[in-house]
């Protein structure tokens, strides 16, 4: 057996708690052994990882690649390159493209377009036809075409009966359902968290109840149907509490939080900073701290919630600006920053973007152990870099972290044992 040896790196496997300097032996796209070479292994290639960390590749639960249909913002080629440079090996892309991901042909098109990048695309299929919340999407066909789960794509299903049937139907084919907990009637027209800052700024708010009311309804349906359901992009402490309680009650639910929610609050919108318009909105300090605790305790996973935009999308007063941030490039460094800020230990932090999302989606990646796919992120934990439009690989330069100095940067990214990215020295 001939393959690749990754030499001398600090190997981190959040799933097992393994954290030691070790060689990693890779062949046939999979990890063959850690530490000692397996019998009959010969090295065709070697990668020097001394001084670097070797982690499972990151799995991003929510990214918009904007293709098909919105390629003035970004496209699959540009964003998979950014993912590779960010150590992300699996990208879940939301179905709210144009056309919507509700037919196998769109899925096939996307997978084909991503092939050259080497990144694993995990397309999320639409839960309802056209994401209109009226008719069921052809979920079985979407699964056959390669969708790992189905999702409301950020457009919540208003009709509770339709949602109930969609959950049941998805469950039939063992497809996890990814929902966005947001009550449209409470949130539509709102631009930021409904609170003291919005009052001062005279900006229409999105109340916390927009999240919790939706969660309450959705959790009742999960209880009724038993469907495996994941709630994406929580923003409030109360929302996280509802998820925890449901988990304690034994419901098959999980949740994630966009990484930027752990760093910003409503205060950042002072002065009408359109960059900070996101959905769900940045809420209070109390909420941010509750989200940080939830991440530390493992109640939620972390995603980038990547939403690349063309430059003028944010170049407007708050109401005219488009919500969302570019996030693929900064995900790893921000997760490491949580470790620096002592929110949680390194292995736990990496778990939130590797094995936790893998479990949510039922993927076999996200674990650095013999037999698993050799999807790896090899990063320099001490590399300091500044976030600028030039250092972002994504076409979306709409990062709320522009100007920040971050520590930790991907040096090599491997998918299925193949090098898909190496930083220029």
């Amino acid at each position, binding site marked *: 057996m001939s393959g690749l040896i990754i030499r001398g790196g600090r190997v981190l496997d959040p799933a097992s708690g393994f954290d030691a300097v070790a060689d990693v032996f890779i062949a046939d796209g999979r990890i063959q052994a850690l530490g000692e070479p397996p019998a009959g292994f010969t090295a065709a290639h070697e990668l020097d990882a001394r001084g670097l960390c070797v982690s499972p590749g990151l799995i991003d639960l929510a990214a918009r690649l904007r293709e098909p249909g919105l390629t003035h913002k970004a496209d699959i080629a540009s964003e998979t390159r950014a993912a590779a440079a960010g150590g992300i090996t699996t990208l879940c892309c939301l179905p709210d493209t144009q056309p919507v991901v509700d037919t196998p042909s769109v899925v096939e098109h996307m997978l084909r377009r991503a092939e050259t990048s080497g990144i694993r695309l995990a397309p999320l299929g639409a839960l309802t036809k056209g994401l209109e919340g009226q008719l069921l999407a052809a979920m079985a066909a979407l699964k056959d075409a390669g969708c790992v789960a189905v999702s409301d794509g950020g457009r919540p299903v208003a009709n509770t009966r339709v949602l109930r049937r969609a959950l049941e139907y998805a469950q039939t084919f063992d497809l996890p359902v990814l929902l966005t907990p947001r009550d449209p009637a409470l949130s539509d027209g709102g631009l930021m968290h*409904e*609170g*003291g800052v*919005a*009052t*001062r*700024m*005279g*900006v*229409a*708010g999105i109340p916390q109840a927009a999240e919790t009311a939706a969660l309450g309804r959705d959790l009742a349906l999960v209880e009724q149907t038993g469907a495996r359901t994941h709630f994406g992009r929580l923003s409030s402490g109360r929302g996280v509490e509802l998820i925890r309680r449901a988990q304690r009650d034994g419901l098959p639910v999980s949740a994630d939080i966009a990484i930027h929610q752990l760093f910003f609050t409503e205060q950042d919108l002072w*002065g*009408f900073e*359109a960059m900070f318009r996101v959905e769900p909105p940045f809420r209070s300090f109390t909420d941010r701290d509750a989200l940080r605790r939830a991440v530390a305790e493992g109640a939620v996973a972390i995603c980038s919630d990547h939403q690349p935009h063309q430059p*003028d*999308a944010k*170049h*407007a*007063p*708050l*109401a*005219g*600006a488009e919500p969302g941030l570019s996030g693929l490039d900064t995900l790893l460094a921000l997760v490491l920053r949580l470790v620096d800020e002592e929110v949680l230990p390194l292995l736990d932090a990496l778990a939130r973007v590797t094995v936790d999302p893998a479990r949510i989606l039922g993927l076999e990646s996200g674990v650095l152990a013999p037999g698993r796919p050799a999807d790896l992120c090899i990063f320099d934990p001490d590399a300091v870099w500044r976030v600028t439009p030039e250092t972002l690989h994504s076409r979306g330069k709409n990062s709320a972290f522009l100007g920040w100095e971050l520590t930790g940067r991907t040096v090599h990214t491997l998918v299925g044992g193949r090098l898909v990215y190496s930083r220029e020295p």
Partner: protein
Amino acid sequence: MNLQLDQDGRLRHFLTVEGLPPALLTQILDTAESFSSVIGKSVKKVPLLRGRTVMNLFFEASTRTRTTFELAAKRLSADVINLDISTSSAVKGESLLDTLWTLEAMQCDMFVVRHRDSGAAHFIARHVRPGVSVINAGDGRHAHPTQAMLDMFTIRQHKGDFAPLVVAIVGDILHSRVARSQIHALNALGVAEVRVIGPRTLLPRDIDDLGARVFYDMRSGLRDVDVVCMLRLQRERMEGALLPSEAEFFRRYGLTEDKLALAKPDAIVMHPGPINRGVEIDSAVADGPRSVILPQVTNGIAVRMAVMSLAMQATGEAA
């Protein structure tokens, strides 16, 4: 850094009252007072803005605000151009910037801006050339600083000292840029108490954090106040499920002689206009002896002259 002030702390743009030093507000009032004597004269012009071009950029319809800004600019001897930009299609994003740059290319010195989006004036101020000054003539629900200053001017005219005053602001606080600017101005000028009165649906969350005492009951809220500021109620509030009817609103929150009797005997009644008779204010009160609604309009000219001349002084020397 305050976007509104230059490095010497002088007014460069007038976007909001919030965060401005009280001395600057007093300076605006004092300057306005000197202009108000000019207005009374037969030759009403002063040459402070001669050779300057002021552009009234109204993305939202307005009669009195635009007219008083126009008059104020003309009395300062500026050239004035009025642009009423269609309200039917929301002018947003790049088109707003494009509009701005196109107009800037015409070498104007000051933009007076009204826009339906909160923060629009800030956005424009952030993107204009260094020599150009921006005056906010109302942005969304956020701020209407010249209105608040003309209200302060009117209050000072009638009451003199701000310190002992109790001022009630009544009605649709939630959607009101006037109320927000009034609250900031009154607190900066050091009144004894600001009250806001309205049903919960029309009171924004945490409004007390701005320095206002909340009353749901108008009768208790009006007790012993020196100044009553009424706000206009838009008809569409019924559709937003914020109120059941105009009639019910008037019964509870409309200003009548009967309710006004609870205020101090010398209390004055203000309204930014245009008034809805029988909705937020009874005709008898609006036209009554304690109403200063028309003097407010007159004062608007002097106050806007003051703001424009002060802002031009700062930017004029910088340019």
